[in-house]
């Protein structure tokens, strides 16, 4: 077998450009560290004992391991209930979001649709002038959604920004594809789901991720519309734990706050790990997705 030797022809870098590289890379690494450290600190504290947490100012590595926080949290039934609620809201909510957003975006991307400008205007209008807290509360109440997980899904079923991202993406797809599919006997709905969606993966996954993260992180609508603790989403549970110190200081009950920082950090880790696990799967589509609507190739 003949091996082919490839001569490498390194591009000659000028001294100036090399200095730039060094500075650039150092700066970027520093930036990355700044972004990464809070997460690392949180992770390290969550597996440290209280003693180890108190004895060091900067938490790079636990001097004494302890999983007490996690074992306490795992035994906490409220955590699992709120986990289930958050999962439900995220999965079902994102499905509802995507179904409505995809269909609306696709239809709105058709220039020959009569009144598409008016419809688009109506959608964009809500971006600039929203109803505000009290009118939204009245709508939720009158729809009998109070104290229901659906109150965290239906009122925010479409996010206009995401709708525009998807609409622009659909609008950029070649119209010939649609024509060909229609000629082959595909229905309009078929065109959307069989032709357009599969080639829109980057945009669709990006928007899905936006929606999913929004649902996972949402606590405000839970504060507003949900009272029953059995329906608290994870973020509300977490917030009430982290901010419970006010109550604890006013001299009331024994609270998790009293159990110290490692416990709180364990709860934080348990809340962010699931959504972090979703990122790598979406990563490859991510940057492509947000820029694809912006630059025409």
């Amino acid at each position, binding site marked *: 077998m003949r091996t082919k030797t490839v001569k490498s022809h390194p591009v000659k870098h000028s001294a100036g450009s090399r200095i730039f590289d060094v500075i650039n890379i150092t700066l970027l690494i520093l930036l990355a560290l700044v972004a990464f450290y809070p997460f690392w600190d949180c992770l390290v504290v969550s597996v440290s004992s*209280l003693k180890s947490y108190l004895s060091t100012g900067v938490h790079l590595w636990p001097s004494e391991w302890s999983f007490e926080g996690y074992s306490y949290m795992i035994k906490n039934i409220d955590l699992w209930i709120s986990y289930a609620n958050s999962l439900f809201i995220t999965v079902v909510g994102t499905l509802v979001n995507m179904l409505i957003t995809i269909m609306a975006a696709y239809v709105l991307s058709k220039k020959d649709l009569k009144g598409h400008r008016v419809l688009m205007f109506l959608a964009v209008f809500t971006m600039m002038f929203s109803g505000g807290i009290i*009118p939204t*509360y009245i709508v939720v109440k009158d*729809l*009998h959604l109070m104290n229901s997980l659906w109150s965290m899904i239906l009122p925010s079923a479409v996010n206009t920004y995401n709708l525009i991202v998807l609409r622009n993406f659909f609008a950029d797809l070649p119209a010939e594809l649609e024509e060909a599919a229609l000629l082959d006997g595909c229905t309009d709905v078929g065109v959307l789901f069989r032709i357009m969606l599969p080639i829109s993966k980057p945009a669709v996954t990006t928007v899905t991720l936006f929606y999913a993260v929004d649902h996972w992180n949402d606590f405000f609508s839970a*504060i507003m519309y949900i009272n029953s*603790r*059995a329906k608290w989403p994870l973020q509300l549970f977490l917030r009430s734990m982290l901010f419970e110190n006010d*109550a604890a200081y006013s001299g009331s009950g*024994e609270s998790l706050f009293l159990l110290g920082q490692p416990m709180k950090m364990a709860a934080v880790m348990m809340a962010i790990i699931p959504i972090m696990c979703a990122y790598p799967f979406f990563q490859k589509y991510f940057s492509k997705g947000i820029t694809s609507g912006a630059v025409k190739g």
Partner: protein
Amino acid sequence: MKKKKMLSLLLAAALTASVVGCGSGKDSAPAQDSGSAATQESSSGSDGSSAAADTSSGERVPLRWLTTGDTAAEVIKSDDRIVEEINNRLGIDLTVEIVPEGNTEKVNVAMASGDFPDIVTGGYGTSATQQWIDDGMVISMNDYMDANPSLKERLETYEWSAIDGSYYGIPFITQYNASNALIIMRQDWLDNLGLSYPETLDDMKAVLEAFTFDDPDGNGQNDTYGFTSDKISSANSTPFDWVFFANGLKYADYALDENDNVIPWFEDPAFIPSMEYIKGLWDSGVVGPELMLNDSAKKEEKFYQGKVGSFIGTVYRHVTRHENSLRELNPDGAIAYGPAPKGESGTFGLSKQGKGGMMTCITAACKNPDKAAAFLDLMVSEEGNNLLRLGIEGIHYTMDGDEIVFNEEERAKDAFSPDGWAHALAWGSFYWPLESNYIPPTDPNRERMQKSVEIATGSQVKNLINSRTAIEIEKASVVDDVFVQYFNDMLQGKIGIEEGAQKLSADWRSQGGEEILEAVNAVYHGN
């Protein structure tokens, strides 16, 4: 153009219809296992739907109570026996809705959007509750006082809260009669240095200096500070209130000039010498430099870590927590606390009597205000108090002679907090255990904790004016910012103390202070 309009209208209508369809279909299922609602009747408004509930529950009168409650309380289940007991006694069908995180904003939004419960608990002395009163959303309780002696007694304790003679709600002012704040010190450091807990401002200075410069932990390094606390957040609470009170400041909120007119407390003659003392501490480096960044958790951490020898901390139930946390790193650590240091004339003080808290009102939408008043009467009565703390005799506790024996297993089935603490209904709306210095009789550290509250309450300074005027509520944040800015500037030497004090007064008065003084003077002289 017309066609387009029609089309958009039609589409909008179709969208609304589809959402409504979805909503009503899904709503019924999740509403059933409502955890915090005491009955199955869920959160639909008081209009119409409550009439239906009326017939289904026999003669019982439905009452819906929307409250901030307390995040530390347990969850009330639908078969809670305490709620059942209250229902039976009063012939009501009580639904308690506790909003997440004690979030008063949620209560305000519910009220503002016309979602009226029968009884509502919101923040006392806030613009929202003021609006409830102004707009007639809540009713005067005066007509129900005679029939409900405990309610009457409670309201008359807060006589100043009446507006033109009418009581629109039961105020629950936090830290009104009791305090849990003291300067907590390292007893082991004091011992190492041969010092004792400081009794005067001079002692205090000496102790803080020794904590900072004389190596109190004996590690051979200059790595300790004397004092820390929370960062200053408002004119109402600085980390050095104890200095002002030691120097003769009389009241917690305002001061009086020689003509018996109300003036801001920082125009009191005690202010300048106090600021000089404080600046002296700051300049000599005995105050932890991170004071301006500290929150409650951070200051405690510094104390536990042995970086600082004293801080303003909470006692009461926290005494053992401080001690245990300190011993994580310092096995020989011990804590000391005592009355605030005295000034030359013997005056002293540390914490300020509260002015804020909760207020529980009967709404104008309540169809049975007499039942609502009876419920409130029970909640603030001795009888109700015992029911919520001890439970039902024979079920939640038994008497062994004079001694109360809790049945923790039974208590856990209802919404009692563990280790003898009260039922969830007792938390947050009408009293906190601190107010009556309540520690379950079964707690081994009971005496020590109660003693700490007695000391802290002894160092609490009363207000000149109890009520909060509408203008104070409106202007509070602006004038507070003025104070905080000048206080920090004076502390850090950006401006001289005398000059700073003058400018502070002038700015404070011009940015809303004059109006505040006018209003509080009217209240003061009216009394």
